[in-house]
């Protein structure tokens, strides 16, 4: 200790700092999503609440599926339901404040955010945003920490709490496997009312705005998902205020924005931690710098 020079200190600090902190290159999140990625436009004014999408989704994902007739049971609308580990999408019913007696039914699933909070949060990068717009989950990576559930502004990812081994994070995967085979999402395909339009997101935004312009008495002039949390790839049109349909009120900035810039600030190319290390080293050296002082750690 006595013959330690300041340079040795700094060198040691740099080595340690580099080894200890995540790569700065990785710390810069928010890579912009592919512009030609797909999305789905959901027009809630057309939905009749038949819940065929629920059925098709389960079938497509090999989940336990009751017979199709069971979905005619409308008593499920009595209470609000959420997507969970047994259903990646659910339909809820809401009173229509503009036309009482004509309730609105809304399908809920992952919104496939352009800059997803779940992807930013996941400790091991098990969630990724694919080129085609789908936010998918990788069972070979996930440790089951459920931080993605904390992060998601739409409260979508669900967890298999009753499995001791390999519990999964369950959420709509935009029918990733089907689409690899060139097919459209199961829910979109089955819908008898063509509530959902599948296509390039940019085109969907155009279509949505066009509908709002042409039928101002039918729609509120708001395309939900165009800007919310930096834009989502699933978009919604509605005839009533989105708040009445329990859509969350969200700002335009991407959900991971704040936390990522904090992260980035704390780590900015290791400079803060390494400086702190060097500073502490200097303090230690000065505090101890009496020639006789034997080192005793």
């Amino acid at each position: 200790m006595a013959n330690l020079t300041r340079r040795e200190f700094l060198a040691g600090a740099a080595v340690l700092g580099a080894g200890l902190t995540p790569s700065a290159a990785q710390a810069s999140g928010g890579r912009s999503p592919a512009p030609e990625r797909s999305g789905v436009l959901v027009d809630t004014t057309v939905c009749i609440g038949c819940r065929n999408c629920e059925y098709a989704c389960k079938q497509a994902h090999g989940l336990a599926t009751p017979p199709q007739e069971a979905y005619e049971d409308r008593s499920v609308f009595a209470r609000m339901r959420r997507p969970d580990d047994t259903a990646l999408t659910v339909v809820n019913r809401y009173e229509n404040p503009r036309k009482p007696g004509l309730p609105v039914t809304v399908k809920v699933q992952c919104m496939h955010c352009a800059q997803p909070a779940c992807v930013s949060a996941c400790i091991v990068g098990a969630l990724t945003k694919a080129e085609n717009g789908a936010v998918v989950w990788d069972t070979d990576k996930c440790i089951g920490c459920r931080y993605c559930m904390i992060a998601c502004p739409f409260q979508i990812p669900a967890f298999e709490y009753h499995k001791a081994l390999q519990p999964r994070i369950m959420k709509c995967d935009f029918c990733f496997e089907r689409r690899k085979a060139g097919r459209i999402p199961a829910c979109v395909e089955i819908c008898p009312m063509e509530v959902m339009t599948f296509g390039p997101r940019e085109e969907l935004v155009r279509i949505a705005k066009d509908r709002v312009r042409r039928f101002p008495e039918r729609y509120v002039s708001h395309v939900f998902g165009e800007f919310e949390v930096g834009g989502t790839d699933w978009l919604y049109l509605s005839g009533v205020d989105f708040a009445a349909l329990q859509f969350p009120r969200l700002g335009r900035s991407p959900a991971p924005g704040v936390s990522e810039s904090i992260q980035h600030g704390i780590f900015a190319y290791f400079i803060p931690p390494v400086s702190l290390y060097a500073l502490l080293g200097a303090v230690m050296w000065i505090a101890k710098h009496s020639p006789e002082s034997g080192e005793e750690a």
Partner: protein
Amino acid sequence: MDRFMRPTPLPRRFLTPGVGVLILLALNGLVFLAGRLLFGIGAVTNLSNQYPWGIWIGIDVAAGVALAAGGFTTAALGHVMHREQYHAVVRPALLTALLGYTFVALGVCIDIGRPYYIWHPLVMWNGTSALFEVGICVVIYIHVLYIEFLPVAVERFLGRVALPGPLARLNPLAERLLAALDRGLARTMFVFIIAGVVLSTLHQSSLGTLMVIAGPKMHPLWQTPILPLLFLLSAVSVGFPMVILESLLAARSFGLKPEMSVLAGLGRMTAPLLGVYLAFKIGDMFVRETFVHLATFNTASVMFMVEVLFGVVIPLRMFMSRAVLKSPALLLTASALVVAGVAVNRVDNFLIAYTPPYSLRPYHPAFGEVCVTVGFISLLVLLYRAAVLLFPVISLPDRTLSPKAKYTVHG
């Protein structure tokens, strides 16, 4: 090192009635733990898709990390700033931190769905994740803590190696190894001590970044971009009170005389640290104008007031008083308030403040969840007791011990 005080393994027997109770609580926790491992998290907890994190994260992990802050604050004081007079508390604080973090790691292991994948973050890096940052720092810091504790273990056995039976032939070799380790450690320890302080600063603050991403799901009284700073400041200010509390409890439990001069010194330094924390906490509240939420009477506003009033304001005032610094009972009270305050703050941040927009049923910890947490804490106290009986951690006057030592156990 102080000439009159020297860390010594405590000459006490391990078993007492209190220890017996702790053993029972620990075993009970283990039973429920087995349930979790065999039948899944859902079998023992009340966690749901709306409330993915419960008391295992809020208490075992978040509060645990905060309360282990005594380790790095005293290391900074004793080793980095080289305040010799505080060396007596460095080892107990180091031991607490070591045990504390070990249990944080255990807590994480049982809370994640796939404990056997716990090593994944070491190779699958996601630099945008605050959780990754916390995880990787904690993993490295645990290793640093064990390295920092090595000299204590070496000191215990150096010159005293006596392997039984045929192994006795290895004694000289073991001695030589220990001696080499002793020399090597003495020369390189500064690297680890500074690393420990840096790592603590990083992950204590990143722990605060964790909930920022929850956005509007978090109550505005707690949701603020300066959460990392608040977490760091509160961790720094809970470090010394935690050491004081632990030292006074250990003194009482082992029938020793508390080192009041050292503890009063720590108490005096706590006041300004708490002051800075309070200033930022209140300042933030005014900048974001969140005080409006205090006007509504609900769990959130009450918990916020409890946290700030009993956890910060009252102990701050107490630590500023000479009478408090002189009295073991009052010092204990003030420290306990800060410790409880920070624990409540972590629970507030991770549980109370978290209000999902679509809640199907509220979250209350299940009986099994509580049992596991209580079991872990009991196990920790038991290990602490075993460690101070085995290793030179607690400083004793260098004369023979007072023979009339009478002791009771405090949880």
